[in-house]
């Protein structure tokens, strides 16, 4: 079975370590904040200028001056700090954020990522995504493995305009967790009940299948 959004978020959260500063993109990455293991603390960075993002506010706590990068109203946890956009991206570009999780339309086995533009159809802009992928050493891309029509999004070469070149090393899809090494996808984990064959058939880029591909623990 393909992972649900919640399961994807759970699996992302397994990458967290106590003391990590983490930037979570809009959508599934953000959900991962709900699955931080007990006894572990991570500080969420929001690129509009907040480190230490808390949960959504109660109705009476809503403050127009306190939003996240997705423009949602949020709160701050203890130990939070506020800074300008220049400082926020100094932090990101300078590699100070421990883990970045974001979505994508396509990735390829060269570590390229396309996530911000579909020519002629969707031109919303890259926001902070280009800075995030260029600045972070440790990035997880979360995405569906294939389109609704069964077309692979894990390609030999991205077809859409790139968000970043050669910067992605780990991809989590609804079917599998894969690393990218030396121009190949390496299959690391399968979604529960999903066969290696199914994953292989939906992966257009070169895929290395180790002898043992365990099921994810979600």
């Amino acid at each position, binding site marked *: 079975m393909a992972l649900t959004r919640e399961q994807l978020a759970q699996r992302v959260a397994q990458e967290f370590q106590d003391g990590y500063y983490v930037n979570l993109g809009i959508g599934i990455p953000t959900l991962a904040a709900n699955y931080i293991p007990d006894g572990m603390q991570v500080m969420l960075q*929001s690129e*509009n*200028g907040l480190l230490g993002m808390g949960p959504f506010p*109660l109705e009476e706590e809503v403050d127009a*001056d306190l939003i996240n990068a997705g423009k949602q109203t949020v709160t701050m946890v203890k130990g939070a700090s506020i800074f*300008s956009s220049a400082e926020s991206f*100094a932090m990101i570009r300078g590699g100070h954020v421990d883990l970045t999780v974001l979505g994508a339309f396509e990735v390829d086995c060269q570590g390229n990522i396309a996530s911000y533009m579909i020519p002629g159809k969707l*031109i919303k802009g890259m926001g902070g995504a280009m800075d995030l992928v260029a600045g972070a050493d440790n990035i997880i891309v979360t995405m569906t493995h294939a389109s609704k029509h069964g077309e692979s999004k894990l390609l030999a070469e991205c077809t859409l305009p790139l968000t970043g070149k050669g910067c992605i090393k780990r991809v989590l899809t609804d079917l599998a967790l894969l690393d990218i090494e030396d121009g190949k996808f390496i299959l690391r984990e399968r979604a529960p009940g999903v066969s290696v064959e199914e994953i292989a058939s939906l992966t257009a880029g070169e895929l290395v299948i180790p002898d043992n591909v365990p099921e994810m623990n979600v």
Partner: protein
Amino acid sequence: MSGFDKVVGSYEEAMAGLEDGMTIVAGGFGLCGIPENLIKEIKRRGNRDLTVASNNAGTDGNGLGILLEDRQIKKMIASYVGENALFEAQMMSGELEVELTPQGTLAEKMRAGGAGIPAFYTATGYGTPVGEGKEVREFNGRHYILEEAIQGDFSIAKAWKADRMGNLMFRMTARNFNPMAITAGKIAVVEVEEIVEIGELDPDEIHLPGIYVNRLIQGTFEKNIEKRTVRSA
């Protein structure tokens, strides 16, 4: 102290001198911390062919979005424009020129513009459409592209508190692009929620020194929220 009193008497005075074809650097992120009344004044003035550098272009009917209604903006330099149908329509039709710029690069370009740095290298955008036509250079085995500073004829920004000298404090994530935007404009116009007496702000707690501010005005703000998201108790 008259020479340091940055307070102007009206929004008309605040934006006096803005001409067609000028470049404006604007603070704000989404609708958070935007200089909403200064934008309304620009709409009232009716200046056209403006180039505006701002992270977003507001929404339909809010923020910079209202300047699109009368086609006052010729070119936007922004990182994200996805909240605005009118924007998308004008961009698709070619009426509006758009220079999509990564958010961190945009912030740094504004800072550079204010800080006498004409250009800097960044890895952001290398190998992407953003890097096309830009110089690529390797430092320590990694590729970077050259990005140039942004400067404006005017900056428009919003802060929380100011003293009459223009020393500024921002409030929470309404800080965002505002400090850099202010530094990048030849004439920096700032609207605030409260103006206090000189000496009331602790020098260590001032977020941006008044040296960058030319005109200051106290306004009232709608503070619209794009995505009101709450949890239940």
